[in-house]
């Protein structure tokens, strides 16, 4: 039996279809993330599960029970809001105890349970503080303790880390993962941040325009995106548009881009003349300054010139214009090498198995992130 199950759920707001025939299920104890750009319907999905919205069609089941017509307080759902929504007029202790009081936990039992949960989120000693006296990270932990204290069938997290600064976010991500691992509550995380989704959950559901684009284990979704939207949403990508020209061995095809870049790709189900988009992750490419180096390997080698080198501390970003005219981004770990000046001739090297071959999408799709994460630069 699934802990949470959505079947063919539709939700419209006026003429906008926020959730469009969405179906998925979550196993008990599993942590699933709903990943998508803002406005993709993921938050609406969360609100449908929590009971703040009613679906226009389809069913929402929690622990096997149909939730149709059930108010939020008639469901067993713990919710951590994006802004945490801690009650400002109550102390930390009162906040955590609130749900237990509402759900009829015996009075005598409440202090003990509050203490246990505060231990769990490492906030012992903060009992009498008000939310306004807590840092963002502490507030989030109180919100977690408050939601978990009612021992819900499912825990919903709405953009759990988006209100925190970058450094704190990493720390809390680890902490959150450890906490979720130890309580083993079925969890659904809604996020627009692919790193958050990949690191927190065992199963990623990518949502776009109210529909599921792809779902699977984080590694699958990142490594084998099913379409251009998923590939772009899951990280930086270098794109080549063109066709497969001939097979060069089992599972190997020669690819020729519209700009006449020619290289080998790994693809099982190809045929001659098939129009495809090829995606290569920037971290799967390398640059070589010495053209003769490694010429014997089976790797693809495309020559070009550095246009810009960016120093990012841990990473180096090399923007290369290939001889064919395409621009690619190559990401290298900083191991002490120096940045090349613009104009340096280089060879971009990558393994055919690092190429993701997708059916041609025709016109370039709308950029899911407003452009700043694509490996294309004017």
């Amino acid at each position, binding site marked *: 039996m699934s802990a949470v199950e959505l079947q063919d759920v539709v939700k419209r707001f006026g003429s906008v279809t926020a959730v469009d025939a969405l179906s998925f299920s979550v196993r008990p104890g599993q942590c699933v993330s709903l990943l998508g750009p803002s406005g993709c319907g993921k938050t609406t999905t969360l609100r449908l599960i929590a009971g703040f919205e009613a679906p226009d069609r389809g069913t929402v089941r929690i622990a096997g029970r149909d939730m149709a017509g059930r*108010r939020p*307080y008639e*469901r067993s759902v713990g919710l951590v809001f994006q802004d945490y*929504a801690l009650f400002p007029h109550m102390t930390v202790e009162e906040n955590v105890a609130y749900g237990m009081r509402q*759900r009829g936990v015996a009075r005598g039992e409440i202090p003990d349970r509050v203490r246990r949960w505060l231990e769990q989120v490492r906030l012992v000693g903060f009992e009498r503080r008000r939310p306004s006296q807590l840092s963002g990270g502490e507030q989030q932990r109180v919100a977690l303790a408050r939601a978990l204290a009612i021992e819900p069938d499912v825990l919903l997290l709405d953009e759990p880390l988006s209100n925190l600064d970058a450094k704190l976010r990493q720390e809390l991500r680890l902490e959150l993962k450890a906490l979720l691992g130890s309580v083993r509550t079925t969890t659904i995380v809604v996020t627009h941040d692919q790193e958050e989704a990949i690191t927190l959950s065992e199963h990623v559901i990518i949502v776009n325009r109210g529909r599921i684009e792809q779902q699977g284990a984080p590694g699958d979704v990142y490594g084998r995106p099913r379409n251009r939207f998923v590939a772009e949403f899951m990280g930086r990508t270098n794109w080549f548009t063109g066709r497969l020209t001939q097979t060069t061995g089992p599972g190997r095809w020669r690819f020729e881009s519209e700009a006449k870049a020619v290289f080998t790709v790994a693809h099982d189900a190809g045929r001659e003349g098939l129009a495809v988009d090829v995606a290569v992750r920037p971290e799967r490419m390398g640059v070589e300054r010495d053209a003769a180096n490694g010429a014997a390997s089976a790797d693809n080698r495309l020559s070009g010139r550095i246009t810009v080198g960016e120093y990012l501390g841990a990473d180096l970003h090399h923007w290369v214009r290939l001889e064919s005219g395409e621009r690619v981004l190559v990401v290298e770990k900083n191991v002490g090498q120096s940045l090349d000046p613009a104009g340096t001739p280089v060879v971009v090297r990558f393994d055919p198995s690092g190429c993701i071959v997708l059916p041609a999408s025709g016109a370039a799709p709308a950029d899911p992130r407003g452009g700043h994460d694509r490996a294309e630069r004017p």
Partner: protein
Amino acid sequence: MTRLLDTAFVALFGVVLVAAAVFLIVPIVMTVLMSFDGREYLGRFPPPVLSLRWYTAFFFDSYYMVALRNSAMVSTVAATMATVTGVTAAVLLDRYRFRGREALSAFFLSPLVVPTVVMGFSVLMFLSLLGLYDGFVRLIAGHIVITVPYTIRTTLASLVGIKRSLVEAALSLGADERRAFREITLPLAKTGIVAGAVLAFALSFEEVSVSLFLYDPPSTTLPVAILGAMRSQFNLTLASASVVMMGVTAVLVLVLDRVFGLDRIIGAGIYRS
């Protein structure tokens, strides 16, 4: 040259500010001093001898005492009912988006722009139509009408500051709508509601023009009584009565400040991010 003009410009502001302050404060200070005048007749300012004779006169004059009691009664009842009405209306306007919401909101606030003289006359006509001739009933009704806009406004201001997610959090934790309202919304809107109630009481307590249309002799309120006394027997009991009125309002404001903090009420709240 530019600098000189700038300085003059700033100085001008200062002068206007001081002038305004003087015109605000001096008459009040004069009234307070005159209320302690020891002379038996209305003499020139300043009083040469101080005494409490006009206060004695005020507190032993049954005309004023009945009026003070009437005012306290009318203002308490009117402010209470205006607060209940105002909170209900504000919650309705804040929570629900319905057709005609804007119109309803404008309608509730309309007494703010209708001249009070017109309000007084209209309320009188309407209540006569209903067959209500009792002075107290009419005064209370009239005072509710003119104070409700204030209770709605202050309540609405504090409700708007309450994030919707707080109520939703309470619901998901197991509270039903009524409990969420009682335990989350009301406590968070408390400052606005109390401010509205106090404002309503103060406005009702000093209200003259609407009251003039609606009172009858047994229900004469203190401001109406002061006005009447000024016309008939001009003496310094007027000054002591005025100071008592001021005192009531001042005490109210002080209590409010002590209990809730005035700046918290005026700049109330937990804003939506």
